[in-house]
């Protein structure tokens, strides 16, 4: 872990700052914050090299004030980095992550969790990219006017688009053009497959685990894992008990089983860490908070993972994906932007 940064795909500390403290960061001390999975001492002990902080707002804000609320979450992440400049370095590129690692800081990136945050607007997508957002999870747990979420696969919600609508496809194209990572955690299986076909750049699952080990519809089935390998993307394993063992309890070993399975089915080059800390109420024994992640690394080594494979999972896979997404953006520099500002769905 001293050679390669641990890059985690998804942490909901900003949501805790909102729900516990109403984003009153001036009144919070992240050095002593007690009742979250994440605080500064735990980050240091956990050797966290880079973190995608989630700018998440609940689905209830869709068709109301989702855009403003999302801007407020993006703002609190920026302010967190400004408040603790010796700990966090705001980052927007693969190079930034490497620079932060050299300075022994945690590179801090932003992922917006849920297409409802865009209010179906490419202008909003572009301005959020300008504000530093580097991935968009296409849905949280609600359909948007242009893409279906994972609940469709459980039968508890009807499919509205059989995956992506035609506007949804324009969103994908614009994300490729901008250089924004497409995150398929929380989407339906149909969306996973459509995006894997459509996207010119590799995609990510910022916090999802293996369906074969725990058949929860938030997890990734084997055939999709193989497609992620073909397209050189990444699946960043979620530690939430309900997605690890499909029950209320789990252990560090159960999480390692997901790593092993994905390696077996699709190779070590598509694996990453996406703990989902502070976004879930139940995490495994042995991984109670972000300080414990090195123990998982030790377990992988114990299970015969080579140094190269472990470094790939820690950070090299994500860096590869991000660089490739940046390359696709650079190739698209001269393309005109898609201009539609409203979805056509009534």
């Amino acid at each position, binding site marked *: 872990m001293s050679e390669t940064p641990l890059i985690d795909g998804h942490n909901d500390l900003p949501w*805790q700052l909102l729900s516990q403290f109403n984003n009153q960061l001036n009144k919070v001390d992240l050095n002593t914050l007690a009742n979250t999975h994440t605080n500064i001492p735990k980050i240091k002990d956990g050797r966290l090299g880079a973190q995608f902080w989630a700018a998440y707002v*609940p689905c209830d804000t869709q068709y109301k004030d989702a855009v403003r609320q999302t801007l407020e979450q993006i703002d609190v992440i920026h302010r967190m980095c400004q408040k603790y400049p010796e700990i966090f370095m705001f980052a927007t590129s693969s190079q930034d992550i490497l620079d932060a690692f050299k300075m022994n800081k945690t590179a801090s990136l932003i992922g917006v969790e849920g297409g409802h945050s865009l209010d179906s*607007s490419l202008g909003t997508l572009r301005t959020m990219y300008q504000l530093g957002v580097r991935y968009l999870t296409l849905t949280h747990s609600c359909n948007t006017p242009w893409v279906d979420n994972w609940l469709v696969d459980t039968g508890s919600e009807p499919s509205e688009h059989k995956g992506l609508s035609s506007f949804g496809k324009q969103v994908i194209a614009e994300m490729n053009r901008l250089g924004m990572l497409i995150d398929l955690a929380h989407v339906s299986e149909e969306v996973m497959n459509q995006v894997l076909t459509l996207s010119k750049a590799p995609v990510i699952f910022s916090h999802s685990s293996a369906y074969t080990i725990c058949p929860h519809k938030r997890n990734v089935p084997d055939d999709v894992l193989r497609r992620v390998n073909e397209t050189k993307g990444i699946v960043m394993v979620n530690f939430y008990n309900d997605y690890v063992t499909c029950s209320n309890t789990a252990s560090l070993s159960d999480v390692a089983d997901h790593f092993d399975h994905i390696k077996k089915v699709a190779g070590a080059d598509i694996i990453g860490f996406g703990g989902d800390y502070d976004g879930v109420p139940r995490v495994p024994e042995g991984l109670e908070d972000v300080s414990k992640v090195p123990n998982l690394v030790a377990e992988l080594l114990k299970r015969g993972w080579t140094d190269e494979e472990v470094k790939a999972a820690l950070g090299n896979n994500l860096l590869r994906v991000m660089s490739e997404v940046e390359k696709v953006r650079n190739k698209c520099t001269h393309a005109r932007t898609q*201009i539609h*500002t409203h979805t056509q769905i009534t």
Partner: protein
Amino acid sequence: MRVLRSDMSSWKRGKRASHSFWKQSIEALVVFSLCVKISGCSDVDELMSTYPLIDGHNDLALQLRIRHNNCLSQVDLHNLSKVSTDISRFKAGHVQTQMFAVYVLCGAQQKDAVRLTLEQIDVVRRMCTEYQEFELVTSVQELKDSKDNGKIACLISIEGGHSIDSSLPALRMFYQLGVRSMGLTHSCNTPWAESSSNFYPVYKRENNSLTSFGKVVVEEMNRLGMIVDLSHTSWNTSSAVLSHSKAPVIFSHSSSYSICNHSRNVPDNLLLELKKNQGLIMVNLHNTFVSCRDEANISHVADHFDYIRKLIGAESIGIGGDYEGATSFPHGLEDVSKYPALIQELLRRNWTENELAGVLRNNFLRVFEQVERVRDQLSSKLPSEVQIPFEEAHNPCRLILKRPDPRSPSSDQSSGAEGGLPALLILATVLMLSRIFLIE
């Protein structure tokens, strides 16, 4: 003393005069006037080449929205029909910097104003990066550099506090997107500032034109280095801001109330306060604010300049044409290529080169520099975390997301368990509604 005559035919009339001393005198006078006129033309060109215009307000972005749905691929900004603004005419008019307004309609307040504002910011950013004649700037230094590089600088201004939905984080994010000025209102009150217009019957208050939250907005703008723009605000709001702001403020597109008594214009007492504040009034060229009638001419416009200069000095004046935001403009000032005609009239009225250099650009630069200095002085101040009280926002689209229990269900779990989050929101909404009913 310069005598400039704009009528070429008088020269021809002079040639047909009787063969007399008067004829010769008239001929001499006319030839002299013509020469002076030609050299006067090159004087204006020379003046405006040295001090090309910084204009305070243009609504091209709104026209792009209305006419083309922000589809820049459908238009060529070098030459646009049906509007008063394009790159060719900017060049002809010696416009070097334009503050483009990212205005969204007041009807979007309490609805999707924030998203629409992001889209307008997006179209200005795209416009100013896709055309190599333009350059997006966000500081005084960048503005000055753009002149040296022969570019037309784009500044972004918000027109109406309804764009921020009473959210300081949104204000900060707009700043990060390049917004460097915000008009506190358009023609609608916000929950925290009052408009000069009664058109929209919302957020009406008595004796509270700039609320405590409104003062915090001004403070945060000072801290960020965002120019406070008082065009469209009520006089009481303007006065309150002029007392409260640590930095100079502007009226980006307003004229003199004493010359034309329209509520959009600025009365003398406010002009005097503006002088103390070292701010700037950027004269609006729209007929209704210039002559208080449907028609006007360059002389009417120049009267505003003369009056304001007499009251508070030429160093307080700039130009904010309001092209594309209004439909009728004075004869001779129909579009953005015509600014030289206005400068020519001011030259004719004995404005000095120094004064005009100020009007054209130096006064704005001074104000913008001072706004940046105040930002630097406030650099140790933390970003404000003040939130507007829920009952003041009075917005049915605004959700409360606070949770009483630190260990309650969070983002991923709520996707599985249906009960937790919606129930808490319902509870919060019920509690909020019951508070409102108690107040009423």
